[in-house]
């Protein structure tokens, strides 16, 4: 579990996050949603330590990440896997070398053991046999899946995904969402997904945090988001006519 306690963050005197409190639950897909520029990515970057918080605490299973020295943070970071919005695969390395990178860096596995792990991770994301390709030779959806394979190679306790569906077609997005949901349950991880994708909210939103104007505006699960009357959520999640229609159908069904 990851706990965020009274987190405040500002840049050049302009406050971006205001007293954020939230619990990201273990074994669940936790979503951070909100409009662009509301502080979602800043919160995620504070959680993984790419930004320092001005005030507040980030606790990884009770371990206070914000007060740790660089060396102690490195240990926690070895337990974190992250899928970046732009995937951030090392373009000079092959798919296999990308997935193997954290293993070579942080474990004493033999070459054979690492190879097995790489094959397992690639198999898990349905990319068996693509070991020798370079990232530039892979499609967007494949790159996302390679990113997930690299993120899970160290068997992380915590998985962060920044806009995992950006730039993907709806069908591939569903595959990625399904994959994130499945591996979260399989490895009993605490998964945090930052997303704009309303399909993801409905599909995999087990614990949703809605951030608006840098504040925690609403939290709940995918069922309660459909029934909420919070106007900001309604204008964000059900902005299009299509989504409004879906909401009314789903509400109808519940009655």
């Amino acid at each position, binding site marked *: 579990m990851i706990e965020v306690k009274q987190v405040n963050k500002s840049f050049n005197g302009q406050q971006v996050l205001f007293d954020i409190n939230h619990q990201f639950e273990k074994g669940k897909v936790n979503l951070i949603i909100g409009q662009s520029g509301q502080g979602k990515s800043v919160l995620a970057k504070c959680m993984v*330590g790419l930004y320092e918080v001005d005030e507040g605490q980030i606790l990884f299973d009770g371990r206070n990440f914000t007060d740790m020295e660089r060396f102690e943070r490195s*240990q926690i*970071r070895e337990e974190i896997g*992250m899928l*970046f919005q*732009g995937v*951030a695969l090392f373009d000079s390395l092959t798919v296999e070398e990308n997935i193997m990178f954290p293993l*070579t*860096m*942080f474990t004493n596995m033999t070459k054979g053991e690492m190879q097995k792990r790489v094959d397992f991770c690639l198999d898990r994301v349905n990319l068996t046999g693509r070991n020798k390709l370079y990232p530039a030779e892979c499609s967007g959806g494949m790159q996302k899946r390679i990113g997930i394979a690299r993120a899970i190679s160290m068997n992380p306790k915590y998985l962060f995904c920044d806009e995992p569906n950006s730039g993907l077609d709806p069908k591939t997005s569903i595959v990625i969402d399904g994959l994130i949901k499945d591996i979260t349950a399989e490895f009993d991880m605490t998964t945090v997904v930052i997303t704009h994708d309303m399909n993801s909210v409905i599909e995999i939103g087990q614990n949703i945090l809605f951030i608006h104007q840098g504040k925690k505006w609403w939290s709940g699960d995918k069922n309660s988001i459909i029934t909420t009357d919070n106007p900001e959520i309604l204008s964000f999640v059900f902005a299009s006519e299509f989504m409004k229609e879906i909401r009314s159908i789903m509400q109808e069904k519940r009655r």
Partner: protein
Amino acid sequence: MKLLQNIGKYTLMLTMVFTKPKKWKIFFSRLINELDNIGISSLPIVGLMSTFIGGVIALQTASNMSNPLLPKYTVGYITQSSTILEFSPTIISLILAGKVGSNVASEIGTMRVTEQIDALEIMGVNSLNHLVLPKVMAAILFFPILIVFSMALSMLGGWMSLMISDLTTTETYVLGLRAFFNPFHITYALTKTVVFGFLIVSISSFYGYYVKGGSINVGLSSTQAVVSSSIAILIANFILTQLLLLS
């Protein structure tokens, strides 16, 4: 004020660069790659420039020697001393600042804007140590080899140009190369080279690592890296000459 801020940031960066690598095996494998990228790939340009400039130095010296009192071996002597003291260590380093500096800044800068450095940091890797230390070590180790290679080719170029133009004999030219030779000048040249190599790669890494924005900023940082490392070379050249030759 900005300059002082950058010097402070650069110094802090160096404290992160010079830490013990997490895995020596990975460090050595990266070092070998960088020796190839930074060093071996620079051999053709260094060789070509050194041969032609050595030839031009010899020809210009020979064409200006109208005084009959000057011994004929002066051409060889001037080619040798100007090559060892200034041309090879400083001018070739300035050329390498362009070639290697822009390459290092754009490579690290692209890694920054595509979040590859963030990915390393989140994995718990000291990205500065992992990316910059092998490059700095490769420059420190290989630049002296490049400069010795440049010295040899420059003197060879001088000889070839004199032979083609029939301005002197091989014996006279070699006599000039050996005349008043001071072995300390080689030590001086190689000391300068090591310092210049360190400055080029560390300054270029600094500009690449702290780039913000997109591809335009990567291009700008690459230019800044070349300009700043060239200025740093000129300042260091002046200080080292004062310290090593005049004290």
